[in-house]
């Protein structure tokens, strides 16, 4: 925790209630949401907060950021206590982040990365067919939207920075799907869970795209606790989240999240991503 945040939190605590602890009980728990999955779902987050707050016994403040890096940095620096982040930054920072819960999607805490192209593109059968084309990455800290395609290329001995004619970051999976659907990009690798969810709720967008291939399964983007979150709060958070799957009150919420529930999760499930991060390390990150 850095000095400035300490001062800030101290000031906040002083304003919020009696001194004695680093943060007061009624001070909101800052919960970061990477733009991985849920963009423009303000009402869902509001309902989720309403669900969480009484069960957690503490107000929750969902914090959305433009990119993964900001969320991860805020978490590591203590500005955020919890965050829903991608498996890639978690795998890289496993030593400093604690796994709180992993969503269950289609019965398992796993997801895949989809290679998608425009619906009118019938000639692309693999990533290699997109050579010299325009490719949309989601975020440099995304597993499915960045790490997966790059490692795929690197493992085939291809330099990902010179394979495409042009790449750009869309800042989110949903944006990447849209970029492909409107023709801004020729292809993209996106979170399969997000694609499935968009297909469920906004099929007119996914209809403009075609899934070329699905990767193998990876650990689902987890909810992690930063170093500033107390062990007690972490446990409470894990209890509330993992209890959602069996709580009828959370059924609607989970349905909108297109998830089955949460499990405590195993850090080892993200080993594959850590290996891929190692593989990609020698490769420049920016497009």
């Amino acid at each position: 925790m850095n000095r400035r945040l300490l001062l800030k939190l101290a000031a906040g605590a002083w304003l919020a209630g009696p001194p004695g602890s680093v943060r007061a009980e009624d001070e909101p728990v800052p919960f970061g949401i990477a733009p991985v999955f849920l963009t423009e779902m303000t009402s869902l987050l509001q309902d989720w907060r309403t669900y969480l707050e009484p069960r957690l016994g503490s107000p929750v403040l969902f914090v959305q950021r433009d990119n993964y890096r900001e969320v991860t940095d805020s978490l590591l620096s203590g500005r955020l206590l919890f965050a829903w982040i991608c498996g890639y930054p978690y795998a890289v920072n496993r030593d400093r982040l604690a796994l709180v819960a992993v969503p269950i999607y289609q019965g398992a805490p796993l997801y895949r990365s989809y290679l998608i192209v425009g619906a009118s593109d019938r000639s692309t059968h693999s990533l290699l067919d997109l050579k010299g084309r325009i490719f949309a990455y989601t975020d440099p800290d995304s597993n499915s939207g960045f790490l997966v395609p790059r490692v795929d290329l690197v493992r085939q001995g291809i330099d990902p920075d010179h394979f495409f004619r042009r790449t750009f970051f869309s800042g989110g999976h949903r944006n990447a799907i849209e970029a492909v659907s409107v023709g801004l990009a020729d292809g993209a690798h996106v979170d399969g869970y997000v694609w499935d969810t968009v297909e469920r709720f906004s099929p007119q967008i996914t209809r403009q795209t075609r899934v070329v291939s699905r990767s193998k399964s990876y650990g689902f983007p987890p909810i992690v606790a930063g170093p500033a979150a107390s062990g007690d709060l972490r446990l409470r958070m894990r209890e509330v989240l993992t209890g959602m799957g069996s709580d009828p009150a959370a059924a609607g919420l989970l349905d909108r999240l297109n998830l089955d529930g949460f499990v405590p999760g195993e850090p080892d499930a993200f080993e594959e991503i850590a290996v891929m991060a190692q593989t990609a390390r020698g490769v420049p990150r920016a497009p």
Partner: protein
Amino acid sequence: MLRDLSLRYKIPLRGAVLILITSFAVTAALIFRAYDDLKQDLIANAQGLASVMAHSLIPAMLKDDVWGSYQIVRAPFTVAPAEHPALRADAILVVNGALEVYAASHPQAFRMLSPVGAAGPDFAVLQRYLAESGAGALRVLDLPRTESLFVVTPIVSDQVPLGLLIMSYRRDGFTPRFARLVGRAGVATLVVIAALLPLSWYWGARLAEPLVKLAGCLGRIGREPPAQLDCRLLESRDEIGQLGTGFRQMLRELKAKQDLERQVIAAERLAAVGRLTASIAHEINNPLGGMLNAISTQRRYGQLDALGEKTFSLLERGLIQVRDTVSALLVETRATQRHFGPDDAEDVRTLVTPDIQRQHARLEWEAEIEPVPLPATPIRQVLINLLLNAAKAVPPEGRVGCRIRAEAGALDLCVTNDGEPIPEEHMPHLFEPFVHDRPDGNGLGLWVCYQIVSQLGGRIGATSDAGGTRFAIQIPLPA
């Protein structure tokens, strides 16, 4: 062809053409104005949007944020259509310095990194223009041979040009609004034309009508006698009215001139005949006198047997008949005779009354004169000749009129009858000798009258129609 067309059509046609030209000119001006207004609206609209958008594109482009740039240029298309769809851009795109697409509202049409000119012929024109003109300030480009208007805005960060924001507006996007304006102008034009054309046609026809009539009348001059040219022209004081008045005046003068010519010709002919007759009569009279004297001497002093006596007598009677005829031809009035007065008139009346009564006709006599200084004998002869002619022409129960009057320094004589009119073809030769339409006359009566009146310096004229025949004589009284 058109030049030969009647004014009746030419004037209304010209009016119609003028109305059409005016209407179309006004409509065209309105349409042009409407197009200009529309363009100004669009420009005002586009300029605001363009400058805001160019400004917000700067950070995205500096970060090379394609997605962010796309979101910005896409934003106007994600909201509900504007009130005036015509004012909505057809496409918005950002191009880099090499005029390659960086981001576009419609990525399918504008592929990233492809030259902007690849998006269609309009953009090819735009690319050529931009390549030549280079970067500048915000511009509205209405390029020839394109279907679109372009609003081009440079995206500049700290004086470093990052690219250009191009907004394209299809001209046919104006069409519905423009068509409404054109339609309205067209309807107004049609209403004006519908109202003005018949009016123009009517006025034109009215203007042309008198001219057409006048032209028709003029065409008849020469072919028809002026008296029969009955031209009813509009009475007015404008130029056409003046033309009509002038035309009528000309007709009158033409008629007077023709009458005069006819009179002059007739008078000259009669004078020539008179001179010829007189000289022949003199030529005959001289030997005739000798011959009669010789016969007289022979009969008085000569010894004639019965045959000689009979022969000379026959010769003498024949020669006397020649002398009478010649002397009848040789009309001479002598100034020494006594003056014509009421008694002479009364004598004439007495002399002719039995002839008229024989026809069971009525004589209407009117003679109110004092003695006038004119020789009585020839005037009596003139009156008797005319009245006896009238008595022969008058039908039973008819009427013969005689009026003798002296006024305005002249003696007026007028003899009328209500008999059959004199045939038209006889009228010009009425006063020539040996002209008669009755078997019992010698054809010299009117000739004698004419000679006497002429010698007295007067005029004699005749008119004859269904109402009767009228001889009028005017003889000026010596001063």
